[in-house]
C-alpha cells in the first residue's frame, strides 16, 4: 500500500498541497481529477520525490519513504509517466526504452514483449522519439515506465491532446498492464473516462481533497461541484 499522509507541498514559498492525504492499494486503479492548477501533478511528483516532503509524508508498505529521490522510488517500484510525455529527443525510441529498462527492475515487462504487443513501436524503434505522432509518443512514454516493472504506475494526463483512436490505444496498453496486477494512479481531464477506468477517485481542489469515494457510486453533480469548486 502506497500512501500520502496529510502532506504540505511547496514550490519555494508557494504552497501547492495543503494537508492532503491519499492512498492506493496494490492492483487498484485510482483516478485523480480536478481543474487546472488543482495540484494533481504536484501530488504525483510528491510521491516520486520530484517535490520533496517530510520523511513520514510518503509511506510504502508501512515504511516512511518521503524525501527520497526519484531513482530511489523507482527502485522501490513507483514509476511516473510525466505530463507532456517528455521523451528524450536525443535518443531513439529503442534507446528511451533501453535506458529505463537498464535502470529499472527486472520483471514481466521487457522490451521484446512491448515490441510484440505494439508492432508499430517495433517499426519506429530506430527513429528519434521526436519524429513520432503524439499518440505514438504517449505509448512510448508509458512503455518507458512499464519496462521499469513498477508496482505502482502514476500516469499524468496520458490522453491529453490525443485523437480518440490514440486514446483508445493508450488505455488498451494500460488495461493490459493492470491485468498484470499493476496499481495505477490516473490523472485525467476527461472525468467520465477517469471514473469509468477507476475503482476509486479523489477530486482535488486548490491543493485539498474536495471529494473522494468509489467511482461507481460517484454522483455527477457532487463531482462537478467538487471539480469546479462552485
Amino acid at each position: 500500500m502506497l500512501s500520502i499522509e496529510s502532506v504540505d507541498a511547496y514550490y519555494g514559498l508557494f504552497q501547492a498541497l495543503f494537508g492532503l492525504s491519499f492512498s492506493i492499494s496494490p492492483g487498484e486503479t485510482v483516478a485523480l481529477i480536478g481543474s487546472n492548477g488543482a495540484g494533481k501533478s504536484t501530488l504525483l511528483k510528491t510521491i516520486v520525490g520530484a517535490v520533496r516532503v517530510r520523511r513520514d509524508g510518503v509511506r510504502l508498505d508501512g515504511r516512511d519513504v518521503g524525501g527520497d529521490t526519484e531513482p530511489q522510488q523507482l527502485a522501490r517500484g513507483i514509476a511516473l509517466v510525466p505530463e507532456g510525455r517528455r521523451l528524450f529527443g536525443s535518443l531513439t525510441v529503442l534507446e528511451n526504452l533501453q535506458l529505463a529498462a537498464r535502470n529499472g527492475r527486472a520483471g514481466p515487462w521487457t522490451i521484446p514483449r512491448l515490441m510484440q504487443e505494439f508492432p508499430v513501436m517495433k517499426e519506429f524503434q530506430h527513429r528519434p522519439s521526436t519524429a513520432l505522432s503524439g499518440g505514438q509518443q504517449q505509448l512510448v512514454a508509458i512503455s518507458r515506465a512499464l519496462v521499469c516493472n513498477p508496482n505502482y504506475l502514476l500516469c499524468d494526463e496520458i490522453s491529453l491532446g490525443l485523437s480518440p483512436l490514440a486514446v483508445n490505444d493508450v488505455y488498451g496498453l494500460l488495461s493490459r498492464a493492470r491485468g498484470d496486477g499493476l496499481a495505477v494512479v490516473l490523472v485525467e481531464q476527461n472525468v467520465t473516462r477517469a471514473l469509468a477506468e477507476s475503482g476509486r477517485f479523489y477530486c482535488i481542489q486548490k491543493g485539498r481533497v474536495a471529494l473522494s469515494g468509489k467511482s461507481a457510486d460517484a454522483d455527477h453533480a457532487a463531482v462537478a461541484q467538487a471539480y469546479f469548486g462552485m
Partner: protein
Amino acid sequence: MLIALETLIGGLMLGALYALFGLGLSLSLGVMRMINIAHGDLIVLGAYLCSVVMQMFGIGPFLSLMLVVPLMFVIGMLLQSLLLNRVVGQGTLSPLLLTFGLSIVLQNFLQETFSADTRSLQAGDIALRGFDLGGVSIGLLPLLSTVVSVIIFAGTSWLINGSHLGRQARAVADDPATARLVGVDDRNFYALITGFILAVIAMAAVLYGIRTPFAPTSGPERLLYSFEAVVLGGLGNIWGTFIGGVVIGVAQLFGAKISSGLGPFFGHLVFLVALLARPEGLFRRIQR
C-alpha cells in the same frame, strides 16, 4: 613544399592535442550545460601532479599516469559533487562565476606550492626521437599524442552513441528532471562525467607538458585553446571539437612559420574568421 607539408602534419598533430584539451570542455558543455573556466588550470594541475609523482617515485611521465589518471578522476568526482553540482542548472552566470573563482584559487595554490617557475616533464629521448617519411620528418612524441587523442575521441564517441553511459548522458543533457524519473541520478552522473573529464585532462596534460613548459599561470592560455576548439567545432559535437582543435593547431604552426611568436595569434585569427563566417561553428549539432 616539403616544409609546408611538414608544417601541416606538425599542425595536425599539435591540433590533436588541443582537441584533447577541448574534449572535456565539450563534454561539460554538452552534458551539464556549463562552462568550466578553471578547465585550463586543471590541465596545469594535472601536469604538476605528474611532475610530483615522477619525482617521488623516480619514474617517467607516462608511467606516472598510472597514478595521476585515477587521482585526477577522484579529484573530478569530488570537485563536482562538493562544489560544481551546486551551480549546475542554475543558469549560465553562476557556473561562470564559481569556476572563475576556482581558477584564481587554483592558480594561487599552484604558485604557493610550486613557485612561479616554469617546469616541463622530462620524457628522456622519446621526446627527441622521430623518423623520416618520404622526406618529411615526424616526431615520435607528436605522433604518439595524436594516436592517443584519436583513440580517446573514438572511445568517447562510441560511449556516447552506443552505451548505457552515453544514453544516460544524452538523456540528462536533454532533460535532467525526466532523466531522474527513469532512474538516472543526475548529480552522481555529473560527478562521474567530471571524473572522466579530469582523467582525460591528465593524459592531455602529460603529452603537452612534455613538449611545452608550463607555469602556474599557464591555465588561461590552455583554456583559450580548448575553448576555441570547442566553439569552432560546434557546441556539443564531439568530432567537431576534434576538427576544431586540429584547425587551431595547423593555423598556429603556419603562423609560427611566418614569424615565430605569431603562432597563437594566427590560431586566434582563424578562430575569429571562422566564427564570423559560421557563428554556429563549423559543424552544427548533428552528431550526438
